[in-house]
């Protein structure tokens, strides 16, 4: 799309000094977004980043666009109102795992089910960073942190499973070590007509360093990241020697040579029923097992803000534009003579 590119990354960088810890994965996500937006050919004035609270939520300050750093957990709700108020806006929501899945969990699932034009980038570092290292809703059971000195007891959420369960139309996953993959995934989210959730494995090098390392280190990727491609058999490994088999027991990894290529599931991101995508999201329940990334689901559904506008247009077509004087008389009137 370089033909429509009239801006460069620099145009999208604000004058504010970026203040994440040196080495934080947030930097590379910021760069991926700043590189992508010129490619999309969108306008700065029509782009808004809304965030909640947390390290990731500082993101809007670093974008030379409209932006709102709001309150903890509420960004999806605020962004929904914003998207409804102006159909021309590209509304992005930025938040971490605590922000989106804990305090803001309710807003996240409802933004998903409504399929409203907000693109949610969920920076998952499996820890609370800004408050200095407590376990989060994606931390593994037994995680030792300041608030769980004897190990956390809470079972973690898988954000992709949660989003699929919440009837999301678009759900994808990427990671902070691969800018190209991030850009391609964010582009797909942007192209989806409705809400989109992208989980990004993000390294918090201060409080949870290397938590995703088994998956995202260059040397591990071929055997540990399962790239989902629509219409293709789900295979991975340096020589595509592994594949994913899906049956009544769910999804599991198999050697292609052993089960045969025909037994390997073909990925269908457009499937009406999210059950298979859900099984894929349950394939790895720890960050130490082969894990699918890419687009899990990209199903067409009516977009909420357009549907809202359509109801207004239909009402106007049927009843005519509003007449206040007539409305005030709609309950019947009587006249007192002078």
């Amino acid at each position, binding site marked *: 799309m370089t033909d429509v590119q009239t801006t460069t990354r620099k145009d999208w960088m604000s004058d504010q000094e970026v203040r994440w810890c040196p080495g934080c994965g947030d930097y590379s996500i910021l760069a991926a977004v700043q590189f992508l937006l010129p490619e999309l050919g969108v306008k700065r004035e029509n782009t808004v980043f809304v965030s909640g609270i947390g390290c990731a939520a500082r993101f809007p300050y670093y974008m030379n666009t409209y932006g709102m750093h709001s309150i903890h957990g509420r960004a999806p709700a605020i962004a929904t109102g914003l998207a409804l108020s102006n159909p021309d806006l590209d509304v992005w929501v930025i938040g971490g795992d605590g922000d989106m899945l804990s305090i803001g969990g309710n807003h996240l699932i*409802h933004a998903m089910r409504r399929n409203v034009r907000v693109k949610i980038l969920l920076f998952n570092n499996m820890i609370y960073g800004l408050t200095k290292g407590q376990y989060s809703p994606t931390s593994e059971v037994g995680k030792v942190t300041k608030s769980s000195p004897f190990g956390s007891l809470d079972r973690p959420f898988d954000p992709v499973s949660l989003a699929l369960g919440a009837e999301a139309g678009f759900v994808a996953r990427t990671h902070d070590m691969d800018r190209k993959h991030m850009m391609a995934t964010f582009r797909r989210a942007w192209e989806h007509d409705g809400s989109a959730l992208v989980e990004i494995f993000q390294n918090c090098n201060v409080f949870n360093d290397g938590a995703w390392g088994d998956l995202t280190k260059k040397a591990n990727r071929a055997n540990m990241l399962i790239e989902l491609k629509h219409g293709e058999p789900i295979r991975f490994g340096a020589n595509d020697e592994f594949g994913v088999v899906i049956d009544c027991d769910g999804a599991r990894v198999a050697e292609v040579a052993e089960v045969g290529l025909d037994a390997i599931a073909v990925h269908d991101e457009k499937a009406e029923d999210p059950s298979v995508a859900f099984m894929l999201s349950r394939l790895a329940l720890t960050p130490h097992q082969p894990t699918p990334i890419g687009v899990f689901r990209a199903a067409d559904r009516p977009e909420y803000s357009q549907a*809202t506008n359509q109801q207004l247009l239909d009402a*106007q077509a049927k009843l005519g*534009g*509003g007449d206040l004087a007539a409305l005030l008389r709609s309950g019947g*009137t009587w006249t007192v003579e002078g």
Partner: protein
Amino acid sequence: MTQTETRQHPVEELDEVVIRFAGDSGDGMQLTGDRFTSASAVMGNDLSTLPEFPAEIRAPAGTIAGVSVFQVRISDFDISTPGDAPDVLVAMNPAALKSQLPRVVQGGIIIINTDAFNDRNLEKAGYESNPLEDGTLEGYRVYPVPMTDLTRRSTEHLGVKPRDAERSKNFFALGVVSWMFTRPVEPTIDWIHQKFAGKELVIAANEAAFKAGYNYGETAEIFEAHYEIKSAHMPPGEYTNVNGNTALSWGIVATGGLAKLPVFLGSYPITPASDILHELSRRKNFGIRTFQAEDEIAACGAALGAAYGGNLAYTTTSGPGLALKTETIGLAVSLEVPLVIVDVQRGGPSTGLPTKPEAADLLMAMYGRNSESPIPIVAAKSPSDCFFAAIEAARIALKYRTPVMLLSDGFLANSSEPWLLPDVDSLPDISVEKATQPNGMDEDGNPVFLPYLRDPETLARPWAVPGTPGLEHRVGGLEKEDPTGNVSYDPANHAHMIELRAAKVAGIAKDIPEVEVHGNPDADLLVLGWGSTWGAIDAAAHRAADRGMDVAYAHLTHLNPFPSNLGEVLSRYDRILVPEMNCGQLSRLVRAEYLVDAQSLSKMNGVPFTSGEILAAIAEQLGA
């Protein structure tokens, strides 16, 4: 006089009457009361209504908890309250009689559906003996009418099943009362046809029951007289009967046009505010976007997002919902965007009394956010005033780029009064300019946008909405640097910004009407009110004046900031009495602000003040 003669009933003239329709929640008392009110409105009476319903949707039939009540006061003079004690009680069952009898004036009229007074119902109501027989009703004028049976018989010929026929007994009751108070029958018959259009049998049954009730009054031997209430001397013009929630909704509809902005409502169902959501959801042809959010927080958040996006945004709720919205309102204080929060107050704390009014959220509206986060507060004083209060709240929100709290309560929400319709062309223009251009220079002389550079007059910051080229900027809940809007932890800047936000809200005092003193301005006693107590205070002050007591009274529609002359007004009076449906919240505010000895008259039982209660307090203050 023989049985065959048609009795000529004498017509007595009354200047007012208060009627209470009471029955089981399934008996259709709200519909009956509402219909009687409309028929009275057509006759030019002034009127005021007060519905009371149980909190449970299906409270057990026949029990006191399930009693649903509609009180209407009609008069030939200007009234402002639904009346204190009813002169007439229509009791459809024993529970209705038991719960309402204590309110009826001595010697009042009681019309009873005797068919409902069977052993089972008597027991459910907690009667040990039948009140129709045991002397309980001595001292009242009791009219026992077998309404269920008469309704059944009047609809028999239509082929209505007896069980279905019973459902029309409220129309029989309506017929009796309509006859008793010489209401015209045609409007009600027309209304029955409209309301039940398409259900021919229901129309026929209701009409038959209504007429049978009316004729029963005319021909039965039991009524001595019927009554007439002449039309009130109301200012000429076109009237409608409106309740507070509807008026408030229509006010919100109006603001879209007056501000030339799309209206957005973010809301979550809650009693007694839901009717605003319902009414606005029907008004899509006015371009009104309603959004039923997943919770109260999201409702307020979405409204804030829409306000940031350039809509005129509202969120509506009641007390418990307001508690949830407070953090978002705090963000709106920091962002300085226009947003109207409507709180239809109800009994609390916690879930409290969802269907009963209280006005105890004033201090929450004033202070219920973390840190120093002042917001303007507007309060409606009567059902129809809710319309104008909504416009005023939006005007302030837009002009000063601030969240504004609009307070109503469960009494205003559901009670109704005749409203002399305003000329819609005379409503104020509340539109404001949005920012379109950079408003400053950087060090190199390049134009820049300074999002917190304020209007020197109003201290409002520019409203620069996404989609405007060249004004891209970031806002948020972290403290802002004046005027760049960049995040700032500088101590002096923080103190300065707190002062600026406070000064902006305080400065609105220059832009709101001064408080007016009614009654005798030279009196020693001032009754100071706010919100829905207006009607009762006004009536009490008139009654006090009639009895030779000197009383001044004033009513606040703006509670933050207070009108600029309030301190001076309060200083003129030796005694200040503040009636409130709370434990003295306004009295505390004026004591703190003006160091005056304001005395609280508190009422906290979920029932609005009667004028009699306020009159008694006035008399006590004056030693009369």
